[in-house]
């Protein structure tokens, strides 16, 4: 089964302490691993002020999870997250396609840059050669 890269960001409620957020993260990690996915990276942003209140929460703890899992699994992970208490919002985004595109652009640009430099060097050499 092909694995795809996902980026899952969720907001935990403001009244949860750091330890509780950690357990929540572990739960979500469990959801992913149950569906044959692997968690690659967990980034905790800590408590941040929300741009607008969600329910009674003015703040929320953000946690970002980078995972690779089969595409069919993510809907189940989402369903489970939806019924988990303590999660205000979540967003799962597939990023592998976008990243690939970005990488390709970058390499193309790098190549262009290097050929341009090479041509400039060539010209320089020709100029110096003519001067001698």
């Amino acid at each position, binding site marked *: 089964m092909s694995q795809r890269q996902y980026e899952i960001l969720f*907001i935990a409620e403001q009244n949860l302490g750091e330890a509780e957020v950690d357990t929540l993260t572990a739960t979500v990690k469990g959801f992913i691993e149950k569906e044959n996915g692997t968690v690659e990276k967990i980034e905790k942003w800590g408590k941040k002020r929300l741009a607008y209140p969600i329910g009674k929460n003015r703040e929320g703890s953000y946690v970002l999870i980078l995972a690779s899992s089969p595409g069919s699994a993510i809907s189940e992970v989402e369903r489970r997250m939806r019924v988990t208490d303590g999660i205000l*919002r979540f967003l799962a985004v597939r990023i592998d396609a*976008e990243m690939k595109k970005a990488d390709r652009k*970058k390499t193309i640009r790098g190549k262009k840059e290097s050929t341009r430099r090479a041509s400039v060097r060539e010209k320089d050499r020709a100029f110096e050669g003519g001067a001698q």
Partner: protein
Amino acid sequence: MSDMETPEFRGRSGEGRGPAGEGRGGERGERGAKGPGGSKGGGFFRRRKTCKLCSEKVDYVDYKNTKLLLAFIPERAKILPRRMFGTCAPCQRKVRTAILRARQMALIPYSTE
């Protein structure tokens, strides 16, 4: 925040240029398409706007990169049309999706009073 590229745009481009001031940016008028009524005397030149994202070489518009996105939303926090910023169509689409995502995650507001 994230370890991906986080290019910043200087200032918020929406400021100081209300909806009415569209396209009146450059007094110097470097080769611009003639605006409406441009041929009648004293017509203003339109500065050709270039896509910021293309020129800054942003490959992936990340919804988590609020600094970048805030450059595209004025004080009212509305997404401004393309003609205000001169972003190219593909870039504007990317910006739009990113803003919608960031809004959902309460990273940037839907609107401000």
